[in-house]
């Protein structure tokens, strides 16, 4: 009772400033103790679209964040034991088509042909894939295998969509053993709800 009485005796102005100070302290403590987290939904299985999830995940892990990637639909291809990812300029008009090697008149310059025509040439997809891999290698950019390995080492949680395996009749033995769990949307969403950063790629 005496406590309540003395509290009432304190002028409102003092009480307010005390509360503001305590609140700021508590919020700062909370922020300092908070480990940032990120969840990524990876839905694409081409060589170009394999990069963003693995680059962002490995970098976030290096910053000390807690990271999960949910692989669904074509994104599941990024978890196969044997990665055979391809890229094509078809339907991808912003993709620069330049030769990383060759004589000076053509090296590093855009190929003089519309991408819609290029893609009609048999074997063009393999060539475009080869060119992109070569260009990345020349520029010191990591391979997808390397980035995936770095993610595993850094404890990025790799979560696979169970429904996609059933849908495309994949065998689970085709995938890397580091997959943490096979789940559905209802298991992934609660994790995403708590994350600071959510990305759909």
């Amino acid at each position, binding site marked *: 009772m005496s406590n309540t009485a003395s509290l009432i005796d304190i002028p409102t102005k003092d009480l307010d400033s005390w509360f503001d100070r305590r609140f700021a302290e508590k919020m700062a403590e909370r922020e300092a103790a908070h480990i940032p987290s990120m969840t990524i939904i990876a839905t694409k299985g081409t060589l170009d679209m394999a990069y963003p999830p693995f680059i962002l995940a490995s*970098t976030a892990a*290096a910053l*000390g964040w807690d990271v999960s990637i949910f692989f669904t639909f074509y994104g599941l291809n990024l978890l196969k034991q044997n990665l055979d990812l391809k890229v094509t300029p078809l339907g991808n008009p912003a993709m620069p088509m330049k030769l990383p090697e060759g004589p000076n008149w053509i090296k590093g310059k855009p190929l003089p042909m519309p991408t819609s025509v290029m893609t009609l040439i048999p074997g063009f997809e393999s060539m475009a894939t080869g060119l992109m891999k070569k260009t990345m290698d020349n520029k*010191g*950019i*990591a391979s997808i295998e390397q980035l995936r390995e770095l993610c595993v080492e850094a404890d990025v949680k790799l979560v696979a969509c169970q429904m996609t395996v059933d849908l495309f009749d994949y065998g689970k033995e085709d995938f890397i053993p580091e997959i943490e769990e096979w789940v559905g949307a209802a298991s992934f969403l609660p994790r995403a709800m708590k994350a600071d950063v959510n990305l759909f790629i």
Partner: protein
Amino acid sequence: MSENTHTLDARGLNCPLPILKTKKAIATLSSGDILEVTATDPGSVKDLDSFCSQTGHVMVSSEQLEDAFFFRIRKA
């Protein structure tokens, strides 16, 4: 002086490899040790600053050499 200096050559590597290599190298050091990183990726200048502010390590110096960037980072 008890602090040790270690070096990391990240020349020729592109984003995000300089950060990932730095993170791996720094994990093997003791608190207070210095890691000297040499990199050629221009993005690494801002990225390593950001890495330090997120992880609590201290960017002691960051300078541009003739053909590379040179960083000294003290482990928290």
